[in-house]
């Protein structure tokens, strides 16, 4: 028997082995959670700087401006602006959302929800976190460089990201950081996939897994396959920058260039498009589960939802070209990518229908995790549907690289995935830390965020359709865009509102960690495996590996005689 296979390891006793170099998936999950929240805050602060600049160009940033930009009297300078949105995008995607949704929930939920004592490879799991940590450190160092951090956009298209456009060390460190993060993600993915396949509790078939696990599992598969593609891309980019190869160099400014800058775009999006589903699949999974749990009835068409998510996973590998319509690929490719992109709306519509079917005729409890899940349905509707405008080649010719795109992906990522993440945090916090979060503050956080983010992102869609393109320091050098000043101001105010309400979350989180009421074993009254054990679970999770006898969503069964309206997965399904 080897390392990870469901044995009971002795509990580590020293501080070092318990909290730092921990092999325990629950501790690693918490490490990822802190890591993610830290970077979420950092990325969010950057977003506020971005927004301030866009609404009030040339006006010093209040309070902190003079501290951060003494040379320009507190005004964000143009080169800093470019670094800001580059780092904002990079940090939010790789260092905030990925650690929270995949690092934290993946580690915490997968073993607990499938009835395992730990991941298949605990040591790899530990390494995965520390690689991510290293990567984060490299990224943070790059922020302090004299020539500044990377400033070519999170997509880092060459030739801008080669020496021609980014002479500083920042872009090199960016590539290195992304590569290290890729190694970390791949390690995590290897672990998740293996764990789900080999360590499911006896009796648990694939369709008995909670949909959260489905989402995380599909995510891990995509990660294992496509992160190395980005890895190859950034290695070549690094070679170009450090050793003078010319993989991505071309044109008159490249001395010996006969490479191909567009190749990087292909490589980036072969990874990049699956990446956006990597981010959202866990959120879809969480939402599908929570809607059922809090409607007190089985997930509507759970099998179809799982299969639809699988279909999206498969399709997501085939549509990447929709990010490159304006580079003029061959007509055949262009049309195929458009058609395939549109096809994704069908599985999406199916699980939307299932989500609505789940709350239909339920007995809905509006606890905070449920509110956030319902919020996801709302914002992902908007985010997904605006994807259609972009997937259509002709309209994309106008919308590409405008704020319409920015609005679309903030709705899908910064709204849907973020709210999904919050739903997960509110839901599993009791199990993670053994205490309840404050419900009132959670509700304030929800409504404040909903108002804030819809203000921001709908505003973005509007200015985008109005013709404002992205990544510009001062849009109002274009006379035709000056009419959009009021809307931009409105977006910025919404962003500040959004930011303020995130503080409520942070306070709630920290407060509940110390002072929250002790959580019972099963505060939400649901039947998946993690709720059959104490909160927080003991080191080895399960004293006895549970045997699974029914599905994860057995709620509201009228035949139940136990006085509960749900049954645990370890109980035989009660039939009439």
């Amino acid at each position: 028997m080897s390392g990870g296979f469901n044995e009971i390891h002795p509990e580590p006793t020293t501080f070092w082995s318990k909290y730092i170099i921990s092999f325990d998936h629950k501790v690693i999950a918490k490490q990822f959670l802190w890591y993610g929240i830290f970077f979420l805050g950092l990325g969010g602060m950057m977003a506020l700087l971005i927004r301030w600049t866009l609404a009030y160009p040339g006006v010093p940033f209040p309070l902190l401006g003079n501290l951060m930009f003494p040379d320009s009297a507190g005004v964000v300078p143009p080169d800093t602006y470019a670094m800001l949105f580059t780092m904002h995008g990079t940090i939010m995607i790789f260092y905030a959302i990925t650690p929270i949704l995949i690092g934290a929930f993946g580690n915490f939920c997968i073993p607990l929800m499938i009835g395992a004592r730990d991941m298949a490879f605990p040591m790899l799991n530990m390494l995965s976190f520390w690689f991510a940590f290293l990567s984060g450190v490299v990224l943070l160092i790059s922020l302090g460089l004299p020539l500044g951090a990377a400033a070519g956009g999170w997509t880092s298209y060459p030739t801008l990201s080669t020496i021609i456009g980014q002479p500083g060390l920042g872009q090199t460190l960016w590539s290195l950081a992304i590569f290290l993060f890729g190694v970390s993600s791949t390690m995590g993915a290897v672990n998740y996939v293996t764990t789900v396949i080999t360590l499911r509790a006896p009796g648990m078939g694939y369709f008995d897994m909670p949909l959260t696990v489905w989402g995380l599992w599909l995510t891990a598969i995509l990660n294992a396959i496509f992160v190395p593609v980005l890895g190859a891309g950034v290695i070549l980019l690094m070679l170009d920058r450090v050793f003078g190869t010319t993989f991505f160099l071309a044109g008159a400014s490249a001395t010996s260039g006969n490479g191909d800058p567009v190749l990087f775009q292909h490589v980036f999006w072969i990874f990049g498009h699956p990446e956006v589903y990597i981010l959202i699949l866990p959120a879809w999974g969480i939402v599908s589960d929570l809607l059922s749990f809090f409607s007190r009835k089985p997930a509507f068409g759970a099998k179809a939802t799982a299969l639809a998510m699988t279909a999206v996973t498969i399709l997501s590998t085939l549509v990447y070209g929709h990010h490159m319509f304006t580079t003029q690929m061959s007509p055949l490719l262009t049309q195929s990518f458009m058609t395939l992109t549109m096809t994704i709306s069908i599985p999406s519509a199916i699980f939307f229908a299932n989500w609505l079917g789940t709350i239909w005729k339920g007995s809905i409890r509006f606890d905070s995790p449920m509110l956030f899940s319902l919020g996801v349905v709302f914002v992902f509707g908007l985010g997904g549907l605006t994807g259609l405008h972009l997937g259509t080649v002709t309209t994309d010719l106008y919308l590409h690289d405008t704020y319409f795109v920015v609005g679309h992906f903030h709705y899908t990522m910064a709204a849907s995935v973020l709210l999904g993440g919050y739903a997960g945090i509110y839901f599993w916090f009791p199990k993670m830390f053994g205490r309840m979060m404050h419900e009132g503050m959670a509700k304030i956080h929800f409504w404040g965020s909903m108002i804030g983010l819809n203000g921001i992102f709908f505003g973005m869609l509007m200015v985008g359709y109005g013709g404002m393109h992205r990544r510009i320091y001062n849009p109002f050098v274009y006379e035709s865009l000056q009419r959009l000043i009021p809307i931009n101001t409105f977006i910025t105010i919404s962003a500040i509102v959004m930011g303020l309400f995130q503080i409520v979350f942070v306070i709630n989180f920290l407060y509940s960690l110390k002072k929250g009421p002790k959580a019972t074993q099963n505060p939400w009254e649901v039947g998946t495996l993690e709720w059959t054990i104490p909160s927080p679970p003991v080191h080895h999770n399960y004293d006895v590996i549970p045997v699974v006898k029914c599905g994860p969503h057995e709620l509201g069964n009228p035949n139940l005689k136990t006085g509960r309206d749900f049954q645990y997965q370890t109980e035989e399904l009660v039939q009439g």
Partner: protein
Amino acid sequence: MRRSEIQHGLGMTMVLISGTMLFATLLMGYAIYRTSATAWPPVGTNPISLGFPILSTLTIVLSSYFMRKVRMESGDLKKAKMNLDTTLVLGFLFMGLQTLFWNELKNSGLLVSSGIFSSVLYGFTWIHAAHVVMGLMSLLWLRFVLKTGTRNLDVKVLNVEKFWHFLGVIWIIMFLTLFVL
């Protein structure tokens, strides 16, 4: 099969899938460069001599053969160690040959920065070599483990072997596409 065997086999499969995707991306890039180039190698480049690449290929194939024997004869620890040592020596020889090859390229005037042709030659062999270094490290680790003994020895031998074969296969594909074709 035992559960832990399945588990480690699966884990290794995922690692190899990831590795394959990395090299597949490189080869896709190569295909695009090659098909869109007017001449390959570009006009004015001396044809590269195949001496060292051929030797490298032979070495890595041979090393794979001995690596395979490690597991076949793992009942006999002494033999296993000897085969592993041979694999290690051949592995280091491979790295040596690669270094000689790079030197030869450099001396023939083909520098890293001389354009896309040399970028591909150097870049791809470097990336492969970096993986060989990782392979050598796992071989050394296995050598250590063989000496000290461990649980699940056969699973570990099998996984290192798979990784080593993988490196060999990638090299052969690179040899065929970059040098022969």
